């Protein structure tokens, strides 16, 4: 089975290791991964800020770059929601592009969703290597909002993480509440965003978690930034990185 990786801006430019982990995991699960090299930004920052005309060329570029892909896999819930759902709003008046998008949209998946629902894998133990760490890591999962509410992603990452014997999933208070990132919201309303983040960090501090993970690198960037500023010990790793680490 082949899949194209849509790496997303933040991973590409800030956290390339997440891209590498995503690629590595997919390979390990038997997928031949290609990387359409013309790929660019999905246009979410412009769209969320109300500049739909500025996001339109990016939507069309996406369709161009990925038109031949059997599957398109993203390590980001919010970008996956953007390209698989919100493009419908942007392309509303563009019949041809809209129809193209309608063809491609069912083939777009966030990573955990792809593994669980397309590859039909719910237990990762079969993929464990001799290098897999033996100690159990206490991991908390942040319910990234766009993934959760736009794409119904919760059971997939939790099941996959929970299936690993060297992972213990731990809960924390109000884990279904937004971290306060919200894209440009975090810059336009930093005090509100900061207050929401502070609640999140507080809840994590009161939990048993050693690691926080999620399927959205932008949420993680925001939470990690707050944890570092507060000087807390908890580590932040992307879902793909955790899988890569735990499988060995």
């Amino acid at each position, binding site marked *: 089975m082949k899949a194209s990786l849509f790496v997303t801006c933040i991973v590409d430019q800030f956290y390339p290791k997440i891209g590498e982990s995503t690629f590595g995991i997919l390979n390990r699960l038997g997928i031949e991964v290609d990387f359409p090299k013309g790929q*660019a930004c999905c246009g979410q920052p412009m769209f969320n800020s*109300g500049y739909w005309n500025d996001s339109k060329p990016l939507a069309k570029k996406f369709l161009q770059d990925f038109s031949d892909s059997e599957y398109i896999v993203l390590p980001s819930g919010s970008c996956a929601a953007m390209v698989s759902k919100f493009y419908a709003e942007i392309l509303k008046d563009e019949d041809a592009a809209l129809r193209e998008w309608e063809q491609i949209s069912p083939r777009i998946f966030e990573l955990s969703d792809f593994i669980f629902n397309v590859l039909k894998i719910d237990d990762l133990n079969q993929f464990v290597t001799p290098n897999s760490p033996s100690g159990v890591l206490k991991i908390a999962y942040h319910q990234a909002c766009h993934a959760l509410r736009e794409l119904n992603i919760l059971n997939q990452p939790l099941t996959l993480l929970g299936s690993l014997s060297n992972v213990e999933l731990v809960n924390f208070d109000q884990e279904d509440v937004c971290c306060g990132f919200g894209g440009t919201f975090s810059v336009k309303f930093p005090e509100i965003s900061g*207050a*929401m983040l*502070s609640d999140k960090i507080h809840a994590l501090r009161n939990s048993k978690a050693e690691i926080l993970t999620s399927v959205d690198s932008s949420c993680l960037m925001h939470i990690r930034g707050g944890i570092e500023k507060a000087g807390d010990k908890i580590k932040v790793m992307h879902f793909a990185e955790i899988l890569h680490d735990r499988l060995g």
Partner: protein
Amino acid sequence: MKPVTEKFRDIALDTLNDSKIQANLNALYEGFHSRRIAAGSATHNWEDLREHGRSIREHTVENLDFYIEILEQAVVANGGNFYLASDADEAANYVVELAKSKNVKTVIKSKSMLSEEMSLNSKLEQNNVEPIETDLGEYIIQLADETPFHIIAPAMHKDRSDVADLFSEKLGAAKSSDVNELAGVARSQLREKFFQADMGVTGANFVVAETGTVALVSNEGNGRMCTSMPKIHVAVTGMEKIVPTMNELSTLLRLLIRSATGQWISSYVTTINGPRSSYDEDGPEEFHLVLVDNGRSKLLSDPELREALLCVRCGACMNACPVYRKVGGHSYGWVYPGPIGAIVSPVLTDLKQAKDLPFASSLCGACHEACPVKINIPRMLLHLRRKLSEGDNDLDTQSSSVFERGFMKGFSKIAGNPLLMGFSVKFLRVILLPFSKNGRLKKLPGYLSGWTEYRTFPIPAKVSFRRLWKLKNR
């Protein structure tokens, strides 16, 4: 109510710094929010009810002109008076003129958000008519000369010592820290008013077109008092509150009550079909229904915003909203706060004046998930953002700065071109590197300093993913 939507940032900041209000707001998660979820789970067909409720509301809104005519016929046939007010001022005038013509001295009021739109209380006072709020929360804020903080629990920002101080100052009551005693003060103060008042003004949770029925949901009993004791009863509400027949009330009441407070049913639901008849022992002799537009037709005329009229005013969205739970109701600057308020308040007052409201959201979708009739609030917020940033179809809603528009255009060009993007980010890294430590920046300049107030910022990676891929696959 005079909109102060432009004060969003200031009031939000004050609220963020008020630890007492923060504690009360935080309590919403375990309170109303969790109780709504529990009530929904305990209802065996909750999802079917939501679908049904939505379809009832959609059908009625799509046929609103028809149902208004039916409603008028029914109200008049019941012996009631029917008035269509184009805006809040017209509605207020109707009530004030009615009060004057009937020599009304005191008006007892049951909760009505529309009466807030009308600034009815101050208009009555200006005309020497005394308005008395009888809902405990509304009574408290009336004494405090404030506006409602939440549409279901208007005084939720106050704790018992605030209320005790208020009652002591305004009513001469002895200070108590017992909530029962405080409620007892309100009860005895208001009881006399109930029996003496000349006119009762209420809202309406729903208005039934076929039978001309006003449905009122309450817990305290003040709604019943206001519609039983005085000689005149006036109900004022938004025109979108219509439902076709009494049959629909069962679904909508379940959705409203269980979503608002998590109660299985409220202590009282009262349905009123006009004034008393000769077969009644008591009750008002006159009944007036005032149906108000006040900008709702603006929502109606925009197919992307029409969905906002499906709202049953339960407050579930604001209980679920992580932003509301930080900034509280006063920040939104008008009658309707929280997620639905971020749409309704700007459109009904002035979009440009309220330009912060649609942007003060992380678009997390908790409101959409919470809404009993599944209103897609984030989608409408995005449409409002578009109107403000780009101007949509008519440029007069555009209020974004030239700088921001230019920035987005430039950003779009760069982000759409992998070569340009790679170049720009590399350039960025070169500039930021000297200021960073271990790949992190502790302070960003100017407009972006808000980020580093609360977070470190990572500098771009030395080698981007696509460069790594290129190198690996040579």
